[in-house]
């Protein structure tokens, strides 16, 4: 594995969906240092999910390169995929199975052995307060509990980089606090967080660095305090509206 200071290094990336005439991205550059808590924000249709999919290898860039911890995406897929975790917005878990059974399955696919899986399941269910329902079917869970299981699946293999696509959407305040606190704890232990959300107040508490994206272009990038000072705004939401406008999007 390569040694690098960047968790993500996107260089001159271009991408176009087969059905679209216009490029979603063209000549995009973005670097996220290791250990950072990085937020990616933008209005609907700005390209956040596409960029997230490119960074996680779900989509392959048409031009340029994306390196994860110095390893180019699309090459040595299995080795690279061990380095990161992905928490999608959808509950990509099996409702018929219990949290333990879901984690056993995803843990095995993430490359852990039986003993490691058992140990991680016990740790995660305890820290995410899912121990009492460890053997109950997930489909009977509330939205907040499902979000926690979704998060546990993404981190079961202790990834160095964690991608989170709206990890707290639709949950109550208590669950949001629990999830954010857990993410901060992970970051403290060295995990790089790459996070996207429409909850900008939440992002202010979680992220150190942010990038605003619109129409496939990064329109602002930097430390939250510096950006607020630069654009003379009080909070991230005002900054967001200032940069992306108040017109309704798709």
């Amino acid at each position, binding site marked *: 594995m390569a040694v690098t200071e960047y968790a993500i290094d996107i260089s001159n990336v271009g991408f176009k969906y087969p059905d679209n005439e216009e490029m979603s991205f063209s000549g995009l550059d973005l670097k996220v240092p290791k250990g950072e808590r990085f937020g990616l924000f933008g209005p609907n249709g700005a390209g956040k999910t596409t960029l997230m999919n490119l960074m*996680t*290898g779900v989509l392959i860039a048409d031009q340029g390169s994306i390196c994860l911890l110095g390893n180019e995406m699309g090459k040595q897929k299995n080795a690279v*995929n061990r380095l990161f975790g992905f928490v999608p917005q*959808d*509950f*990509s878990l099996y409702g*018929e199975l219990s949290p333990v059974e879901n984690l*056993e399955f995803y843990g095995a*696919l993430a490359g852990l052995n039986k003993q490691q899986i058992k140990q991680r399941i016990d740790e995660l269910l305890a820290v995410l307060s899912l121990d009492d329902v460890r053997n109950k079917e997930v489909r009977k869970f509330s939205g907040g509990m499902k979000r926690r299981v979704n998060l546990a699946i993404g981190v079961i293999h202790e990834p160095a980089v964690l991608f989170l696509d709206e990890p707290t959407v639709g949950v109550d305040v208590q669950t949001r606090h629990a999830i954010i606190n857990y993410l901060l704890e992970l970051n403290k232990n060295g995990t790089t967080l790459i996070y996207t959300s429409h909850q900008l107040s939440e992002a202010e508490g979680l992220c150190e660095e942010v990038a605003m994206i619109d129409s496939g272009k990064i329109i602002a990038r930097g430390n939250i305090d510096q950006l607020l000072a630069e654009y003379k705004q009080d909070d991230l939401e005002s900054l967001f509206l200032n940069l992306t406008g108040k017109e309704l999007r798709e």
Partner: protein
Amino acid sequence: MMYKLWATIVKDTRVLLRDKVGISLMFVMPIILVVVVTSIQNSTFQLVSKNRLQILIDNKDTGKNSAQMIKAIGNIGLFKVTEMPKGQTNISDAMHNTDAMLGIVIPANFSQRVAGKAKNVSDKAMTSFGLGDSTKKATEAKDVDPLTLYYNPVLQESMRLSVKGALQSALQMVESRETLRTLYFSINEKQLPEKLENEMLNNRTPINDVPVSKDGTKTTPNATQHNVPAWTIFAMFFVIMSLGGVVVKEKRSGSYIRLKTLPTSYHITLISKQIVYLVVTIIQAAVIFSIGMFLFPYIGLPALNPPSDILALIITTLICGWCAVSYSICVGVYADTQEQSNGFAAVSIVILACVGGLMVPSFAMQGAYKTAASLSPMHWCLEAYYTLFLEGGKLKDILNNLLPLFIITLVIQFVTFLGLKRKNLI
């Protein structure tokens, strides 16, 4: 790799076992189908062989030939003959009232016309023998008015044709008898002795029917032997109702996308599903065959006789099951919603069963339907099962059925791969 595969198999098995509706669709429904269809086919068979079709006769003739015609119809053995109820004049109404499936109207001049026709033939024969008066003109014969056969539209075409054939045979018997009697009288000027008449008319050469099997056995096929293998194939394709939905659900939930971000191969997911559901199809076949062999005799149905080549049966079941599973995954990959998957699945397997010969024998199909049959995996599987169950065939006898089935399965797998690629799922 093996641990990942094992974990995926465990996951797929758990998901399957918790899908109660899916399991009932895959097991209970096909079993009900096999039992019901076999019972109905068996009762249809018994309707002809034991119970007999009720036939209502409206005899407007008063002569002896019509009486003999009625007797001849009764002697065929297919029918339970009933005379028109007194006071009833319309045969259609009478059929409704008596639940008779068939009705025959014998015209008023039937005996007279049959006798006239016989006299005409006799005169011509006498002249031809040189025994008659060559100057005398043969008796003019008017055509016999047709008998009219009424039938319930429920009666299938094939059954109606059989009935017509049987009635023609009875009519020919009556006409031949009358001709023989007239000719005898013309030659000997006395009545044909009854004993001689019976010898001449009833001494027919018998026809033996022998099923031709590959192993030389002469077991007579029955409704069970025909239906159980056929509907077992249908049952195996019923996995689509569960598996197709599972694949759609995984796609929609984002599980496939998540799998793309994990250090694993999509092959594991596909192989796991194929293993788990192949086991399901084998269990389905084993359960249905066992019901045919052991339960059917207790519910008044003929028992299923297993084929002599069990290895060939297992191989056929494996390939058929694999094809059914591959088809199910393919439908799941292309369908966008579970409703789409279930709707298409239900209709497509019925169409495949129709063109594959499960509902109409493929040997009776013509032209394009024959070609369509060869594209249905169910057709090749059915041919293989029939060779084993009905003809006593061995593995070598079904290789020409298994090869196309195998090729169709590979084509389905390739189409699935294209779908997964196109939808960016792998």
